[in-house]
């Protein structure tokens, strides 16, 4: 005959599941950064394991049952994992023909950079096209669009300059933005001003 658990076991497991549910909600509201997701999943896995082992009696089941239940996760893991080998490594491709790649541009040499003078930087359109504009446009799929940049920064060109010197990576979908600190403060200010101006003006009429 199969194992009959005492009622107390079921109630204890139920209590644990309730506690873990409360825990997962509580933790969700804590600032753990990237840890929030793994913690939530871990709690879910623990809860699921309790249901499987005690409510579904796997703890008292045959070796075959245990083997079958365990092997499911292997196949699920291969579905997730191998699919992710594609998506997580797409951004590694630096060829311009990659799917979500920005195409790493060679840094402009000193000779190619315009002089740092008011006159040279009055109209930074060409410089913009060779630097920021190569990734940021209104229709780009490989970096935030100018519209999004306008949403984020409005007129705050100082913040844009700070970002361009030391870009962080907030959107995993895009390849990391390289630093443009080598352009120097003056050029970056001119570029930032120009970019925000272009962004505010909106896309050209169709």
């Amino acid at each position, binding site marked *: 005959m*199969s194992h009959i658990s005492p009622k107390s076991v*079921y109630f204890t497991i139920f209590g644990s599941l309730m506690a873990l549910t409360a825990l997962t909600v509580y933790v969700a509201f804590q600032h753990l950064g990237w840890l929030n997701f793994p913690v939530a999943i871990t709690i879910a896995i623990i809860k699921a394991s309790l*249901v499987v082992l005690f409510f579904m009696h796997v703890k008292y089941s045959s070796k075959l049952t245990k083997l079958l239940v365990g092997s499911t996760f292997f196949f699920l893991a291969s579905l997730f994992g191998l699919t992710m080998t594609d998506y997580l490594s797409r951004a590694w491709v630096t060829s311009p023909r990659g799917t979500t790649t920005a195409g790493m541009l060679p840094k402009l040499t000193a000779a190619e950079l315009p002089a740092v003078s008011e006159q040279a930087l009055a109209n930074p359109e060409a410089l913009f096209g060779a630097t920021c504009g190569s990734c940021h446009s209104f229709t780009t799929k490989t970096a935030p669009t100018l519209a999004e940049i306008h949403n984020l920064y409005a007129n705050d060109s100082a913040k844009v300059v700070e970002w361009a010197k030391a870009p962080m990576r907030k959107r995993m979908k895009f390849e990391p933005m390289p630093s443009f600190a080598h352009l120097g403060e003056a050029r970056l200010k001119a570029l930032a001003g120009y970019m925000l101006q272009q962004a505010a003006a909106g896309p050209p009429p169709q």
Partner: protein
Amino acid sequence: MPDALAAHADAHGQSHGHAAHHPALQHHFETLEQQKEASTLGMWIFIIQEVMFFGGLFTAYMLYRIWYPEAWSEGSAELDIVLGGINTVVLIASSLTMALAVRAAQTGKQKAIVNWLIVTMLLGLTFLVIKGFEYEHKWALRHVPGLNFHAEPGQAPQVEIFLSLYFALTGLHALHMVVGFILLAVIAWMAHKKRFSPEWYTPVEMSGLYWHFVDIVWIFLFPLLYLVDRAHQVAG
């Protein structure tokens, strides 16, 4: 593996060593034990394929969560965490009552089987009603992808993908609950007719396995859908 020689029943169903041929024993099996083992194994394998079934949706979820953390954050924030939480508690409670129903069958408590099954069904129904309210609310907010989706201004555009997966996952889960509900109704009726005994209660146990599986899916859906980035952090 039972000793099939000793338990041999010939083709005319004559009784053998110990108990007479139980009415639930199907003739291609040698013993009730073998039949029960076969049923249990079969149900587990079926559950495993259900896991792979949901697995495809989880794969899509995982990819797009990585790609669109803001959309996920915004989409999740618009789900009612209180209703979701209540549903989680309700469903886990229904797993408890289901386990107690199986236990009642194991210990031959005929009325208790029926009662616990009915409670399980009522809890399941509660879940579905609450879900109904959530869906209705989503419709009112024009958050249903494809059908009446209307993007809020300033919202990450990929929220529609989040919602597509929300409805696909919870809808499929709800469908499984409806099937489970019907299954439990049938089993409860059989229990009412006193068909089960400590010697044979396999259908109760199998329904239990199915019901617990449906609960487990929700155990994952709740944090994955309702608890994304509630502390308002951006991923990365």
